[in-house]
C-alpha cells in the first residue's frame, strides 16, 4: 500500500524495514521507527477518533506525550490497551489499532448526534438538570455512564508480567534531549553513578526532530558521540523508553520502563514493564518543553496540529502531514517549522500571524523564503469537519478582541499552530519546587528547588540549543559535585545556534467571526471538550478560583492532564477576571507525568507473592493429608482435614469427637514465642500482664492476660519459667508481632531501667498439641519423660526426648482435655509429628485443625482474642477480673478505673444455649431481649462463637450480652432475616467438664 505522504529523503525511520498494521480493521504500512501517528499520517489519515463529549471528529495534534486527541485502542483480547497515544505507540508488525469513543467508526459515528444538542451541554450542565422526575436519576445516570469513558478496559486477565525494583544513584537525569545528555555527560565524567532516562526509544529529544548542527555537524552526531561516551562509563545506566513519572519525598523518584510494548512478538521471559524506584542523591531535570496550540475557532478539526509536531513528522519520521499548510502562530519560533516543511516540499499557503508585526529571526528567514505572512490576523473560521479544507483569515482589531476588515479563505490540507511553549515543569512541581511566572515567554518556570534538584534546558526556560547544552553541562557537573564527586567543570560548550521563539504576542483567545461561544468552538482542553466559552461561563457563575474552574469545566482533568491546555486556560481566566496570571496561580501538578500501569505498581507482589505465606515445618504433611487451610495472620493453618467428600461440618464433628474420645493432634507451631531474660524479668511480666508472676517457679507455667494501655484485652497466652530470670512467653498466632513490638516499646522507651531482654523464638520450635484421654498413653510410648500426673502435674513442663529428639513438653490445655504440647527444634518437627501419627494409629489418632480447636476450647468457655474480643472488651467484661491483680500496676490498669468501664451494663461474656439443640446460631447474630414485629429493635449483645458439639450432643454458643454476667438463666432472642427467631438461654460459658477433671487427669 502506498504511503503517499512519505518523504524518502529524510527522517529516521528505516525504509528497509516495512511494517504492516491495521487501523480500524484496514491494513496499512509503515516503517520501523514509526509511531502509529506517523504511520497513519504517512498514509494520509488524520481523522482518528471522536471527542469525549461532543463526539467531534478528531485528528492528531502532537507528536509525543502531549497528545490529547489521538487516543487509540491497541490490540484486542487479553493484551488490549485503552487510550494509547498514537504519538507514543511504536509501530510493530501486525499491530492492530482502533479508534475509541466512535461507533461504528470515526467516520460515521452515531454519538455525533450529541453535536446537535451541544448548546444544551455547557460546562456543568449536569448539575442543573436530570433532576426531574425525582426518581429518574438512575436512568439518566446509566445513559451518561455509557456515553462516558474513552477506550475499553481489558476483560481478560493480563498475560504479561511486571518487574519492579529499587535503585540508587548519585545523579538522576530525567530527559535525554541536548540538556539531559549534556548533564549526564559531565556527571558521568566525575565518576558519579548516573541514571539517564528518556521516554522515547531514541535519545536526542527534540534534536531528533530538528535540523540543527552542533559544532558544525548534524546535531545527531553529537547525540551519538555523547551516548557512546556515556556507554563507556561503567557507572552510567541508560534507560530508553522510560518515563520518569513521579517525584516524591526525599528525592525518591519513580520510573516506568517499557520492555515489550513495541515488540511484535512478546517474549515470555521478558517483563512487559519495569518500575524503577530510585533514590537519587541529586537530580537533573531536563524534560524539555511542550508547545501549546492557539485557541481559535474550531481549532480541533482533524488536520490541525502543533507546529512542532508537524516539524517532527517531517524531520524525524519523514512524513508530510499534508501538501499545503497554513501556519497559525503567535510567535517567531514557529516559522522554523514552516521553513523545514517548505524545505521538504510542503507548500506553505500562508502564515496567519496574530502578532501586530511579524518579526524575529525565523520570521525574517521565512519572508526571504517567500512565505506569505498575514500579520495581525486572526482565524475567522475553519472549513472542513473531518479534515480541514480551508482556513479563513481576517485582520485583528487594534485591541485584538475582534476581527475586522475583509476575510480571505486559504485552502490547505493541514494547519500548523503555535501558541508558544510551556517548559515541562511537571516533575519540578511534583518535587514541590516553586514556580515563577515569566511574563516575557508567558510561561511558568522553575524558581526555587525544594529538593536536591535542578533544571536544565527548555524545562527551565532556556530556549536556544546552545543554551540548553550549556545548562546541561553545568547542571550535570553541579549535581555530581553536590553528590560528593570531584569537580569536573562543565568545560566549553559545543557551538550551536541559540535562537529562542520570541517575539510573541499573548492573545489567549484568537477571536473569530462571532463572539466566543456563539458559533463554532474555541477548544482549550481538546480531550475533555472544554472550550473558552466554558471557562468564561464558570467565571460568570462564580467558580472563579482556578481550582473551581478546573473542576467545574473539567479542564486539565483528562488523560493528558492539561499538557497543552493548562496555560491557555490560565490565560483566558486571567483575562476574564482582569488579574495577572501569577495571581490566578496554577492547579497542582500530580504524579504520574503520563499514565502508569497498575500492574507495574503491583510488580511481583501479586499472586502467591502478594502476601508472604508462613508455613510450619509440618506444612507439607498437612497438604498431603488434604487439609483445608485458614489464614491466621500471614500463617496458613490447617482448618480441618476432610476425608473423602466430607463436608467441613462433618469433618469438624468427627475431629471434635475423636479428640474427646481418644486423642487428637494439632499443629500449634504458629503460636508466638518470646524468650524473656534478665534480672528484672518478673517485674517486667508483672507490668505487662494483668496477673502476678512472683510465685511462678522454674518448671511451672501460667496463663496471662495482656491489655493495651486503654484497658482492652490485647493478647493472652501461657508463660513458663524456664529458670530463674528466664521465661518463655507464648502469644496468640496472629498477635505475636504486635506483642513483641508492644513489649519492646515499653522496655526501650518507658522502662529502660529494667534489665530484661526479649528475643523472638516463634520459629525455633515445632509444636504439636496432643489432646484427649489417650494423650498420655500415646505420648508415653515415645518419650523418656515421666508423664504420670504426680510427676508431671497440670501447668508444668518437663524436658526430655520425644521420638528420640530433645523436647520440651508442656502440660497445658486449650482443648480442656488431658493435653500435652510438645515442642521440638523446628528441624525435628516433621519427624516428631510423623512419629506421633504412626505410633498413634492404634489410638485412632486424629489430626484436627483450627476449627475443631475452636469448638473444643469453646466447650470449655475459653476465649479467643479477636473473636470473643474486638478491641472493646475488658477483662472485667470477660469475667476475668480475678486475673487482674490489685497489688500492682500493669499496662491498662488505670483505664479500667474510668467511669464507663465500671458500668454494670457493659457487654459481658456468657454462654448461650439455643432452645432447639439442633439449631446452630450464626456467629455475629445480634441478640435482643424484647422482640418486636419488625426492626428497629434494641440489641443487647451478639454471638461471638457458635458450634454444634458432638460432645455436648447439642448446639451451643458464646456471646457478649449487656450485664450478661448476672443474667444466667434469662432468655434472649436472635431475630434472623426472613422473620425467624432463635430463642436461647444465657448460661455460664463453661459447658464441658466444669470442674476441670479431664484437663487435670
Amino acid at each position: 500500500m502506498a504511503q503517499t505522504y512519505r518523504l524518502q529523503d529524510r527522517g529516521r525511520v528505516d525504509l528497509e524495514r516495512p511494517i504492516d498494521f491495521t487501523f480500524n480493521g484496514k491494513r496499512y504500512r509503515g516503517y520501523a521507527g514509526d509511531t502509529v501517528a506517523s504511520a497513519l499520517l504517512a498514509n494520509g489519515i488524520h481523522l482518528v477518533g471522536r471527542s469525549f463529549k461532543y463526539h467531534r471528529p478528531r485528528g492528531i495534534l502532537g507528536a509525543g506525550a502531549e497528545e490529547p486527541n489521538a487516543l487509540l485502542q491497541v490490540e484486542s483480547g487479553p493484551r488490549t490497551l485503552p487510550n494509547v497515544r498514537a504519538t507514543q505507540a511504536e509501530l510493530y508488525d501486525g499491530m492492530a489499532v482502533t479508534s475509541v469513543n466512535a461507533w461504528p467508526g470515526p467516520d460515521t459515528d452515531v454519538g455525533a448526534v450529541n453535536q446537535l444538542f451541544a448548546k444544551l451541554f455547557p460546562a456543568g450542565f449536569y448539575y442543573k438538570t436530570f433532576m426531574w422526575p425525582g426518581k429518574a436519576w438512575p436512568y439518566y445516570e446509566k445513559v451518561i455512564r455509557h456515553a462516558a469513558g474513552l477506550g475499553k478496559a481489558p476483560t481478560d486477565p493480563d498475560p504479561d508480567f511486571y518487574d519492579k525494583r529499587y535503585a540508587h544513584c548519585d545523579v538522576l537525569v530525567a530527559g535525554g534531549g541536548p540538556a539531559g545528555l549534556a548533564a549526564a555527560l559531565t556527571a558521568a565524567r566525575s565518576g558519579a553513578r548516573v541514571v539517564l532516562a528518556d521516554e522515547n526509544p531514541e535519545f536526542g529529544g527534540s534534536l531528533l526532530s530538528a535540523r540543527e548542527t552542533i559544532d558544525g555537524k548534524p546535531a545527531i552526531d553529537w547525540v551519538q558521540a555523547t551516548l557512546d561516551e556515556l556507554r563507556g562509563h561503567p557507572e552510567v545506566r541508560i534507560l530508553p523508553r522510560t518515563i520518569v513519572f513521579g517525584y516524591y519525598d526525599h528525592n525518591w523518584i519513580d520510573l516506568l520502563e517499557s520492555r515489550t510494548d513495541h515488540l511484535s512478538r512478546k517474549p515470555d521471559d521478558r517483563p512487559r514493564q519495569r518500575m524503577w524506584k530510585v533514590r537519587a542523591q541529586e537530580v537533573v531535570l531536563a524534560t524539555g518543553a511542550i508547545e501549546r496550540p492557539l485557541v481559535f475557532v474550531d481549532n480541533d478539526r482533524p488536520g490541525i496540529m502543533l507546529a512542532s509536531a508537524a516539524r517532527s513528522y517531517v524531520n524525524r519520521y519523514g512524513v508530510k502531514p499534508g501538501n499545503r499548510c497554513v501556519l497559525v502562530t503567535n510567535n517567531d519560533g514557529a516559522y522554523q517549522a514552516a521553513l523545514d516543511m517548505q524545505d521538504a516540499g510542503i507548500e506553505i499557503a500562508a502564515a496567519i500571524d496574530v502578532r501586530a508585526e511579524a518579526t524575529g529571526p525565523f520570521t525574517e528567514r521565512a519572508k526571504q523564503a517567500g512565505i506569505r505572512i498575514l500579520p495581525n490576523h486572526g482565524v475567522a473560521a475553519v472549513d472542513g469537519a473531518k479534515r480541514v479544507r480551508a482556513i479563513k483569515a481576517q485582520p485583528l482589531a487594534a485591541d485584538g478582541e475582534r476581527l475586522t476588515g475583509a476575510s480571505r479563505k486559504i485552502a490547505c490540507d493541514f494547519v500548523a499552530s503555535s501558541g508558544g511553549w510551556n517548559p515541562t515543569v511537571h516533575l519540578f512541581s511534583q518535587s514541590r519546587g516553586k514556580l515563577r511566572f515569566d511574563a516575557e515567554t508567558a510561561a511558568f518556570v522553575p524558581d526555587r528547588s525544594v529538593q536536591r534538584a535542578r533544571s536544565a534546558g527548555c524545562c527551565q526556560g532556556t530556549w536556544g540549543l546552545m543554551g540548553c547544552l550549556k545548562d546541561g553541562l553545568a547542571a550535570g557537573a553541579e549535581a555530581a559535585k553536590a553528590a560528593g564527586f570531584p569537580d569536573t567543570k562543565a568545560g566549553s560548550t559545543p557551538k550551536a545556534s541559540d535562537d529562542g521563539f520570541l517575539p510573541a504576542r499573548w492573545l489567549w483567545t484568537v477571536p473569530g467571526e462571532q463572539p466566543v461561544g456563539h458559533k463554532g468552538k474555541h477548544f482549550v482542553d481538546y480531550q475533555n471538550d472544554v472550550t473558552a466559552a466554558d471557562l468564561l461561563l464558570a467565571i460568570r457563575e462564580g467558580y472563579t478560583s482556578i481550582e473551581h474552574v478546573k473542576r467545574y469545566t473539567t479542564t486539565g482533568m483528562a488523560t493528558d492532564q492539561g499538557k497543552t491546555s493548562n496555560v491557555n486556560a490560565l490565560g483566558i481566566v486571567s483575562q476574564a477576571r482582569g488579574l495577572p496570571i501569577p495571581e490566578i496561580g496554577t492547579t497542582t501538578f500530580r504524579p504520574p507525568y503520563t499514565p502508569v500501569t497498575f500492574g507495574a505498581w503491583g510488580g511481583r507482589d501479586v499472586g502467591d507473592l502478594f502476601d508472604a505465606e508462613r508455613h510450619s515445618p509440618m506444612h507439607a504433611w498437612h497438604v498431603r493429608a488434604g487439609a483445608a487451610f485458614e489464614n491466621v495472620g500471614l500463617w496458613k493453618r490447617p482448618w480441618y482435614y476432610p476425608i473423602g467428600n466430607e463436608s467441613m461440618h462433618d469433618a469438624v464433628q468427627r475431629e471434635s469427637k475423636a479428640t474427646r474420645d481418644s486423642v487428637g493432634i494439632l499443629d500449634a507451631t504458629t503460636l508466638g514465642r518470646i524468650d524473656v531474660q534478665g534480672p528484672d524479668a518478673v517485674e517486667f511480666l508483672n507490668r505487662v500482664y494483668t496477673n502476678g508472676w512472683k510465685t511462678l517457679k522454674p518448671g511451672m507455667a501460667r496463663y496471662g492476660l495482656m491489655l493495651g494501655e486503654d484497658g482492652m484485652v490485647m493478647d493472652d497466652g501461657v508463660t513458663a519459667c524456664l529458670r530463674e530470670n528466664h521465661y518463655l512467653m507464648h502469644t496468640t498466632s496472629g498477635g505475636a508481632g504486635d506483642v513483641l513490638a508492644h513489649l519492646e516499646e515499653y522496655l526501650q522507651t518507658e522502662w529502660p531501667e529494667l534489665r530484661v531482654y526479649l528475643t523472638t523464638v516463634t520459629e525455633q520450635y515445632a509444636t504439636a498439641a496432643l489432646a484427649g484421654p489417650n494423650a498420655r498413653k500415646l505420648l508415653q510410648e515415645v518419650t523418656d519423660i515421666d508423664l504420670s500426673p504426680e510427676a508431671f502435674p497440670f501447668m508444668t513442663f518437663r524436658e526430655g526426648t520425644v521420638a528420640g529428639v530433645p523436647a520440651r513438653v508442656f502440660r497445658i490445655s486449650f482443648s480442656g482435655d488431658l493435653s500435652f504440647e510438645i515442642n521440638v527444634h523446628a528441624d525435628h518437627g516433621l519427624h516428631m509429628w510423623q512419629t506421633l501419627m504412626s505410633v498413634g494409629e492404634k489410638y485412632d489418632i486424629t489430626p484436627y485443625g483450627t476449627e475443631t480447636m475452636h469448638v473444643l476450647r469453646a466447650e470449655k468457655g475459653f476465649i479467643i482474642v479477636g473473636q470473643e474480643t474486638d478491641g472493646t472488651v475488658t477483662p472485667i467484661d470477660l469475667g476475668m477480673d480475678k486475673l487482674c491483680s490489685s497489688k500492682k500496676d500493669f499496662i491498662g490498669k488505670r483505664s479500667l478505673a474510668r467511669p464507663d468501664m465500671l458500668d454494670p451494663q457493659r457487654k459481658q461474656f456468657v454462654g448461650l444455649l439455643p432452645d432447639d439443640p439442633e439449631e446452630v446460631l450464626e456467629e455475629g447474630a445480634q441478640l435482643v431481649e424484647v422482640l418486636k414485629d419488625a426492626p428497629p429493635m434494641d440489641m443487647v449483645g451478639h454471638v461471638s462463637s457458635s458450634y454444634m458439639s458432638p460432645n455436648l450432643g447439642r448446639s451451643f454458643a458464646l456471646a457478649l450480652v449487656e450485664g450478661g454476667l448476672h443474667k444466667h438463666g434469662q432468655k434472649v432472642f436472635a431475630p434472623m432475616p426472613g422473620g425467624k427467631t432463635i430463642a436461647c438461654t444465657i448460661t455460664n460459658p463453661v459447658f464441658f467438664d466444669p470442674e476441670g477433671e479431664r484437663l487435670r487427669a
Partner: protein
Amino acid sequence: MPDSMMTTAASLRHSPFDPLHLAVRTQDGLQGAGIGLIPRDFRGLVTLRVDLDREPTARQAVTDATGLDLPTAPNTAASQDRLSVLWLGPDEWLFVVDDPAPDAGADLQTKLTGLLEGVFAQVVDVSGAQAAIGVTGPDAREVLERAVPLDMHPRSFQPGQVKHTLFGRHTGVSLHLKDDQPTLDLYCRRSFTGYVWRYLEDCAKGAETTLAVLADR
C-alpha cells in the same frame, strides 16, 4: 520405643528447604547463570543481647568463648574459620556456626551462657528459627535490588558488612556480604523461607537473568 526411632537425631532433621523440592545443581559453579542461590541447610545460630557499656566484662567473655571480637561498628560482621558474628543492633548480635551438626547452635549457646554467668545478657539458640540462603553470582546485586531497598552497590555495601532490612513487603532479612563476587548470606525467619526463595526466583526472572540452585559446601 519403636526401632525406627533408635536412629540418631541428626538424620531425623528436615531443613526449611525440604518442602521447596529444589533441583540443586551439584556440579561446581554457576555455569553461566547470572545468580546462584544456595540453600544453606543446618547452621548453628545464636542470638546474643548484651549492653557492652553496662556490662564491661562481656566483651572479653565473648572473645574467650568464640575467639571473635564483637563488632561494635554498625552494619559490620566479624568472621574467623567457621564462625561469624553479625551486628544486628547496638546490643544485639547473631552468631553463625558454619557446622551442620545438630547441636552446633545449642553448644555455642551453652558455652556463651556459661562464660556470661552473672552478666546481664541474653543468649538464645535460634538455629531453628532462621534459614540461611547463600546468594552469589554477577547478577546477585541486580536481583537483590528487586527485593530489598538497600543500595547494593560496592561503594555503599562492602564485604564484611551486614545489613538488616525489609524483604519484599512483609519480612525482615539480614544480608551479610562476604566477598565482592559478590557472595552473600541471607538470613530470614524460617516460616518465610518459601516466600523469600520464590521471591528471589521471581526477581531473577524480572532481572532477565538465569538462576541456578547450587549445592552448599
